[in-house]
């Protein structure tokens, strides 16, 4: 991959990343993450 393509990929990925995050926030994914993270995850500790 030449340096020009690499640079373009960097910026494209960064812009997509922020667009993904914004879309995820607007459709309410943050509350799903919070809800999972503030309760003991039985699967994580091996009881799932």
């Amino acid at each position: 991959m030449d340096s020009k393509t690499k640079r373009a990929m960097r910026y494209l990925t960064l812009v997509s990343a922020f667009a993904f995050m914004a879309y995820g926030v607007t459709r309410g994914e943050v509350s799903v993450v919070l809800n999972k993270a503030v309760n003991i995850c039985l699967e994580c500790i091996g009881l799932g």
Partner: protein
Amino acid sequence: MKKIGINVKRKLIQIAAFGFTNSKLANFSKGNIYTGNWKQFCNPGLNCYSCPAATYACPIGAMQAVAGSMNYRFSFYVVGFLLAVGVLFGRLICGYICPFGLIQEVIHLLPVKKIKIPKWMTYIKYAVLLVFVIILPAAVTNYMGIGKPTFCQYICPAGTLEGGIPLLSTHSELRQTLGHIFSLKITILVLVVIGCCFVYRFFCKTLCPLGAIYGLLNKVSFYHMTIDDHKCIHCGKCASVCKMDVNPVKECDSAECIRCGKCVESCPTDAIHLGFRDKKSSQ
């Protein structure tokens, strides 16, 4: 005055990052986990959100939680976060920030014979990412459309070590429900600990789905490595000091490089550069 080596600087940053992501230490004695608003944000490194001290959500756990929830099959929020962190820093996160990376490095200090793993084993983590983190939580669902976080449930040794053992030691009612899944997870944890004694960052190299994501982004990340071909004398010192079994001269964008900087320090001609900007090549 004697200059502080890159390894000491890295260790200090790793310890600080470990403390920052696990700041709720009092919860260990209470047997609780932190339930505040910081948990809506993901931690860039692998750190179980059921660890009593954890302040942030685990990105791999969060990705599966959203994909396995009733309303969504894919987490734009978490994938976006990982893409942003990954494209900015690549596997620098693994080398400097990941709490489970530090734990593995401490285990590796045990004085036993150190060995290298074959290259094919480093590809297992991509299969783990695809099957256990992306496909199974979204595809295998119950009658309500809810999937399980299969990586957390069947594999994650960080969850067993940071969440399982501390919580089970303080909750007798949870201990009564232990079964085959816990036996499987303890077996994986023991195997990973044994692996880490012999192989540097055994889990990162073979199984970590977060390492797989950041590894792929290492190839295009803003923080990157450059080799000055005019300065390089091909002495091979950089490859010989690399604990991730990378030859920086041949593969400076390797998905395995955790940007620890050991090769930069070892280079006798200052031909290796790590940073956000390209270093101008000398003629």
